[in-house]
């Protein structure tokens, strides 16, 4: 049987983590190809509906990457994102969904290695968890 390859949808902010992912690439760092990146201008623009949609339509995990606290290009977008993610994780954990499938991480434009390491770690964790059952529920 083929080994389970998790799908990760990553919402990355333009100014920090997306540029960090770019640096990982230009630095020829290796990381698992399981991640599909969606670039946004700011983590503050990540509505919870995007995360829910991804988890219900085939993603095994969602990574949200933004600037470190205090470094947001728009001042406070990442702080607001942190509250929204906290709210979503609380709701999901209350209804018995493993909220550790959602990762929020701060990765700056200069942290290409941290991006590669984070993706590697997340994919490893998701492989242990196995497929996200929610994507196969037909009546949601």
């Amino acid at each position: 049987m083929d080994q389970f390859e998790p799908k990760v949808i990553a919402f990355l902010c333009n100014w920090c983590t997306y540029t960090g992912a770019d640096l990982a690439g230009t630095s020829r760092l290796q990381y698992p190809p399981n991640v599909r990146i969606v670039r946004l201008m700011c983590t503050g623009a990540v509505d919870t509906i995007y995360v829910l949609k991804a988890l219900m339509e085939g993603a095994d995990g969602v990574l949200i990457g933004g600037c470190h606290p205090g470094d947001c290009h728009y001042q406070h977008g990442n702080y607001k994102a942190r509250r929204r993610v906290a709210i979503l994780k609380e709701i999901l954990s209350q209804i018995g969904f493993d909220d550790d499938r959602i990762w929020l991480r701060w990765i700056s434009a200069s942290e290409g290695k941290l991006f590669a390491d984070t993706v590697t770690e997340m994919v490893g964790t998701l492989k242990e968890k196995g497929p996200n059952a929610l994507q196969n529920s037909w009546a949601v």
Partner: protein
Amino acid sequence: MRHATMNVDDGDRNAALQELLTQLLRSGFVQAVMVPKPLADGSAVVQSLVVDPEQLKGVTPIAPTMPVQSARILSDLTRTPIEGRIAAVLKPCELRATVELAKFLQVDLENVVTISLDCYGTYDVAQYAGMSGDERVGALQPLAGGSNDAQANQVREACRMCSRPIPIGVDLGVGLLSGSSDSIPLSLGDRFADELAEALSLKITESEPEGRATAVEAFVARRKEYRDKALGGFTKETASIDGLMQTLSACIGCHNCMAVCPICYCKECVFDSAVFEHRSDQFLSWAKRKGVLRVPTDTLMFHLTRLSHMGTSCVGCGVCESACPNDVPVASLFNSLGGKLQEMFEYVPGEDPTVDPPVASFKEEELVEVAPNE
């Protein structure tokens, strides 16, 4: 907060409140009063905007029914600046929703004098319409102490589990729960206390009338007991996705709950937008992947998104559940999960106008565990 007492003649508490509102209007303190008023045969009560004092004769500020959430009406009434003041008679949950909407800049409270009564709970509109005339008259004269068990057991589920039946931060609070057959205690917020005292010829005191705190405490304790029991069971039922889907199984995606919710104020909701007008082949491709697809789609996503958007500000009024054609327990869902979110931020919606709602604010040092690599 200051205090006063209102006299009641012949034990008729509703008539005493009619008189109070009439004085407010006649004295010129307000130019209009928003107050529940029965339609022709009395089986339906609607909010009304009264400017002619004569029209206050039949009003029923105590009527235990809430056809719409009045915070939404106040949002309409204060959309553009108004001259003169409007007094608004609100249930405590309507007051909380109003304060919450004011924080989101959807209500302008500057020229609104809020009046709110201790709430014994409300009946569904159809339930109220089905009552006999005598029953409705009886419901207008709640006993001090809230010992009317029949009413306590028949009001809407959201009311039965409401642990905040007392208005907080109100301009004029009417303490129906306490007092006697010939008087009702009033509380006056600092904002209009002096003007209200003058308009209503009230004698102001600094201390709360004796017995009030005890009566309130006992009433709230009964509600909390029911709430803990009801939500305890509900939380167990919805502790898994399958359990939650069972709870939501009767949802037909009509979005009534969203349409009547006072906190869901967005002019353009994503669920009414083109985002959810999928291409025909999209449905088929979803169905192919899963083998079978529930249609209309997005039931769980709708409720979870609404929870994450406004669960932190839910005031627990339960109009969502009353508006549901299939009795999906939406209010219990928001009371249970929304309550957890509110605990997370130690936030009480509609309580303190100076505290920002959780989704509109943040602290630099918080929730470190959510993004652990900092």
